[in-house]
């Protein structure tokens, strides 16, 4: 059992680095502004959000039926469909597929699910070399760091950081921070791996039950690359990614990229319905706690998530903490409400990494009530005795006990005249934890 991630302490460390914190905050706020500008171009924006939410709620409440439909259609299309109950089973299935063909090198595009399952270390321990083809994922792989953001895994790194990293790994010029130059360095160094690949792996943004298709959206085309540059394509996808029809797909495609980056669509939005001639395509449907989460009355709406990261971009806490501070696969607001379902103790502090301001809920394209779920998780943590002693103590200390006599009805307060508050080292808070009254109750001032 893991100790709880101390997100607050990690955030404090991140904040001490003013260069990186300021850059991340500005960059992601700019993404939020781009999202706003894109939404303004779509008069039916709010209607699309409602439709997306309702489509997901319909699908999730009929999930078994759609899973079976997808399996049948995908199989008819020539895909081989697998089922994985948990992360370990998923990883084993991937390994078995590769081992059966004697393959020891795999290229893959970005998949948060494979991060969740910790696929790469599993395969690497068994002698399979894995090369990430997504630029941001590759940067993080080279640096031995997990992704810090679900759309831009290396977004917390400056161009200088990347230049230094590439010079260490690829021998490029450490002083050339030009992004185009660095992208070229990456392209040159990964192209040989890609062209020699014997197996490629992708995730999926959406799974269409009606047509037996998987849909992947990238700006680099690296998922298309990963899927095509070998006769073996493995696609891993969470069971909650299913949507019923092509028609419903359109709603999500219109919302996804606008919410994520403010563009109308990604440069490559691809539909895979089956293997090409002479090739094999596997789809692994992964549960890993999703079916259990479906039964959580207060929290199952988190399964609607389409992984756009709009919540992270708008979250003022995320932008000042950095994605790595959460110590989790999924971070920011959506991470707070998902991660406790994986490991409640390890992520017991996350629901408190929020001011409950509600901006996340407002930008979520599928209308997940994120901040309300964060509030709900706090109660769960308290009920399950998960609130750390230290945190509880801090909350009690915040109990306002002014030592100065209170001013009279017509007087000025100490704050008004500028002299230090008796609780100068803390922001004085509302009364804490002393039901039914608060300490001030005996000294009610106004009468």
């Amino acid at each position, binding site marked *: 059992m893991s100790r709880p991630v101390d997100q607050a302490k990690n955030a404090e460390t991140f904040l001490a680095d003013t260069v990186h914190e300021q850059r991340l905050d500005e960059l992601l706020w700019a993404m939020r502004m781009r999202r706003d500008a894109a939404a303004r171009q779509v008069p039916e924006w709010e209607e699309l959000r409602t439709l997306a939410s309702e489509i997901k709620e319909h699908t999730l409440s009929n999930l078994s039926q759609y899973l079976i439909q997808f399996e049948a259609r995908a199989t008819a299309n020539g895909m081989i469909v697998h089922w994985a109950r948990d992360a370990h089973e998923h990883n084993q299935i991937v390994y078995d597929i590769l081992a059966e063909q004697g393959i020891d090198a795999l290229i893959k595009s970005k998949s948060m699910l494979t991060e969740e399952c910790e696929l790469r270390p599993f395969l690497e321990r068994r002698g399979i070399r894995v090369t990430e083809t997504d630029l941001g994922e590759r940067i993080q792989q080279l640096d031995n760091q997990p992704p810090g953001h679900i759309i831009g895994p290396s977004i917390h790194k400056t161009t200088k950081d990347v230049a230094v990293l590439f010079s260490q790994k690829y021998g490029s010029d450490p002083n050339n921070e030009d992004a185009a130059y660095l992208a070229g360095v990456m392209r040159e160094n990964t192209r040989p791996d890609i062209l020699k690949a014997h197996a490629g792996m992708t995730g999926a943004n959406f799974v269409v039950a009606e047509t037996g298709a998987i849909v992947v959206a990238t700006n680099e085309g690296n998922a298309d690359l990963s899927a095509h540059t070998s006769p073996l394509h493995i696609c891993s996808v969470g069971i909650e990614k299913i949507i019923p029809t092509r028609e419903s797909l359109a709603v999500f495609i219109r919302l996804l990229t606008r919410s994520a980056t403010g563009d109308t669509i990604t440069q490559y939005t691809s539909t895979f319905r089956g293997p090409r001639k002479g090739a094999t395509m596997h789809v692994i449907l992964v549960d890993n706690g999703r079916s259990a989460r479906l039964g959580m009355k207060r929290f199952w709406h988190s399964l609607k998530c389409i992984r756009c990261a709009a919540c992270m971009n*708008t979250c003022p806490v995320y932008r000042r903490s950095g994605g790595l501070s959460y110590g989790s696969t999924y971070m920011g607001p959506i991470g707070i409400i998902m991660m406790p379902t994986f490991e409640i103790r390890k992520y017991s502090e996350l629901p408190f990494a929020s001011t409950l301001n509600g901006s996340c809920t407002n930008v979520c394209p599928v209308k997940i009530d994120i901040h309300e779920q964060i509030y709900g998780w706090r109660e769960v943590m308290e009920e399950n005795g998960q609130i750390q002693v230290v945190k509880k103590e801090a*909350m009690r200390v915040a109990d306002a006990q002014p030592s100065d006599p209170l001013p009279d009805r017509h007087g000025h*307060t100490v704050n008004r005249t500028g002299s230090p508050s008796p609780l100068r080292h803390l*922001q004085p808070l509302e009364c804490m934890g002393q039901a039914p009254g608060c300490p*001030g109750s005996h000294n009610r001032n106004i009468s």
Partner: protein
Amino acid sequence: MQAALMVPCYIDMLYPHVGIATLELLEKLGVDVVYPKDQTCCGQPMANSGCYEEARATEEHCAKVFGSFDCVATPSGSCTHHIRNKFTAGADSPERQNLVRNTYDLVEFLHDVLRIREFPWATFEHRVALHTSCSAIRGLNMASMSEHVHDPVFSKPQALLSGVPGIEFVEFERVDECCGFGGTFAVTEEAVSAKMGYDKLAFIQQATPDCIISSDMSCLMHLQGCARRQKQDIPFYHFAEVLNGVSL
């Protein structure tokens, strides 16, 4: 008309002048104000920490004290948001339902119930940065939310303050980004909370206001602390004080 005045515990303890200003303002407007003396707290701090058991007794007490009034006004968006939208720790009762239905933030009370727009006894010839709390915006719909790009832009506190002769509002960036207070958050995530406050102050200061006004004292308290730590000398006023006729 009659209204019960709920004064948030932290205002009573630390900023009683805000409670007094609210009282005086309501009396100026002809409201018969009742101040129940055994009021304590709305339960928000405990509930926001997940401590529902502790919140329960507080909320039930609050319902008992205020539940018989047709109108309850309070100079706090966060308390109003808690009562209207999250008042679930205590047992249900007619008093609880009454309280949920009849509690108004001061802004709402003036704007929607009394429908007042002019405050002839006040003047405030200053450049004002108006900060509206997240509870007020997203919990109580007191102003438009920047995320909802198609909604018409509006602000009830600004509409009311516009009735004070001389006020000039400055515009600043990230107008509805959270100030970082967040209740317990300010203690448990002090570094991030403070940074959010410093950033908000920086955006506000770029617009060179003479002062900062809000209808939520908790935000002001936080920003005030941040300003003090940065040795920034900018005055802070609660919305009620300005409408009541305070001068700089």
